[in-house]
């Protein structure tokens, strides 16, 4: 039924207006960065209508020649590996926690939540001291392991929830059908929890992709990730705003398609759409 009463139409118009205003505020910085990326350094803070034709690709050329592409690659390596490793360990762990009849599960959930909630500073300082002694500063291995302290609790926690929504009977049916526990997990439980798994992997990837703090502490030069590399455009005497704008776009673009693909999975997993 479509509600056509005038009071409903007023309410609807009001709602749409609020959404448009919010959308404008949310989109404004992005649009601004986009415009900045095409402006020459000298005009960057001039009103755009005073010199609308002062458009340049210099900022993009500059970024291409800098160390920034390598930093982007580092971000990919770290976010990809730490998510993949955390998935390999965390997905079976989530399954075990959701489906076993262990009595200590309460403590496990408590510990996981603590790890998720604790501020990263709490981990980084001991980690830094350990890494200095172990020679892991500025190594991929060190950075990836450090990032797993972020991704692993997230993935275990969310997979625990996803598997909890898969009915026990489904796994029991597979076991009655002659599947081993491993096969029941891989061929029945995991596909049934797939939306949750995709969502968990993407969220894990994004946490690492967007991280600045860990990388700032643990990297020096060869493994610097993109968010930290952006800082290199800020020097003592000047700030290269044009390059920063391009770098921001370069950081955002790769996750756009990811979000589009992930969108339906995240919505599905949040609304718990696993039904027999």
């Amino acid at each position, binding site marked *: 039924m479509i509600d056509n009463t005038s009071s409903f139409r007023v309410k609807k118009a009001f709602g749409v207006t609020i959404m448009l205003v919010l959308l404008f505020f949310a989109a404004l910085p992005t649009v601004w960065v986009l415009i900045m990326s095409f402006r020459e350094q000298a005009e960057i803070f001039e009103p755009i209508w005073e010199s609308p034709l002062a458009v340049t690709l210099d900022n993009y050329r500059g970024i291409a020649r800098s160390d920034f592409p390598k930093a982007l690659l580092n971000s990919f390596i770290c976010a990809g590996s730490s998510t993949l490793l955390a998935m390999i360990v965390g997905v079976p762990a989530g399954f075990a926690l959701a489906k076993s009849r262990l009595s200590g599960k309460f403590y496990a959930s408590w510990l996981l939540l603590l790890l998720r909630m604790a501020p990263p500073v709490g981990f980084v300082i001991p980690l830094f001291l350990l890494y200095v002694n172990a020679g892991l500063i500025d190594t991929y291995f060190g950075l990836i392991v450090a990032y797993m302290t972020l991704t692993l609790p997230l993935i275990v926690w969310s997979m625990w929830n996803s598997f909890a929504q898969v*009915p026990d*009977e*489904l796994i*029991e*049916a*597979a*076991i*009655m*059908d*002659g*599947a*081993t526990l491993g*096969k029941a997990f891989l*061929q*029945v439980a995991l*596909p*049934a929890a*797939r939306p949750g798994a995709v969502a968990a992997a993407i969220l894990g990837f994004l946490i690492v992709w967007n991280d600045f703090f860990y990388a700032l502490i643990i990297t020096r030069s060869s493994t610097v990730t993109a968010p930290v590399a952006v800082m290199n455009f800020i020097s003592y005497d000047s700030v290269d705003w044009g390059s920063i704008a391009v770098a921001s776009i370069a950081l955002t673009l790769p996750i756009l398609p990811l979000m589009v693909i992930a969108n339906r999975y995240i919505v599905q997993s949040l609304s718990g759409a*696993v*039904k*027999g």
Partner: protein
Amino acid sequence: MARIELKNVEKAFGKVEVIKPLNLEIEDGEFVVFVGPSGCGKSTLLRLIAGLEDTTAGTIEIDGRDSTSMPPGKRGLAMVFQSYALYPHMTVRKNIAFPMRMAKIPRAEQKQRIESAAQVLNLTDYLDRRPGQLSGGQRQRVAIGRAIVREPSAFLFDEPLSNLDAALRVGMRMEITELHKRLETTMVYVTHDQVEAMTMADKIVVLHDGVIEQVGSPLELYNRPVNLFVAGFIGSPKMNIIDGGQAPGIDAYKIGIRPEHINISTESGLWEATVGVAEHLGSDTFFHARVDGMSDPITVRTDGSMQVNRGSTIYLSPDEQKIHRFDAQGIRID
């Protein structure tokens, strides 16, 4: 083909004893129904046979082999669950193929078995659909198909019809009974619905608080319930249970008389009663009538044609041959 034997089987979850030590024999090819109220342990007993739960004590033998600690997949049993438990990401074909894939049956043979099962169960047109696109009855048939193709030595059904609507339930009841007649495979069936138990079973096992109250054919249970619990549980509507003191002349602590074993007269009879609610089912009419001195109303069955008004007086005479007598412990007296 399988003969299943439970010897002193016992199951406790922590300190709660769900199944008290019990013995049970299920003969090869028999259709056995476990029936009882919620929480009586009937599903647990089935899951013990399936191997989905470990026994606390006792042994389970399937075809003479001790299967107590054998993993579920190795017992050669197929199970149909209440929720159907179809794999949601697989097509009907893949669902049915799953147990055969696990058993590494050759592809050609798989294909052939799927097709013949689909034919039997009217699923041929739905083989490439996903479970989400099927109706409840079709899903149930897929679950049965998945059980049939592996040619198990026994089928286990855990309340398979309780998610279906009433009309479909009657249809599926017939289909499962037909299937049993054709396959002649042992079937163990759990239900809380005593009508399902009565209509389908060769042998009914009545469970109550983890104890087997009685084992017997449907008519044995109906005609000779061993105690008050079975008497009250089997039969619909329920047997009238009357305190002996309120029914003089019939010498017992408690007596039971089924609604269909009471004669009604408008002129004379043993008990004078006032008619309360009447339930007209068409073929039958059930009267609830109050007798002076009895605490509970008596339910009486007549054929659908009898017209009696609420508040009028009728006379009830229990059929002497059909009265069940019970002692103070609720045990049947003969």
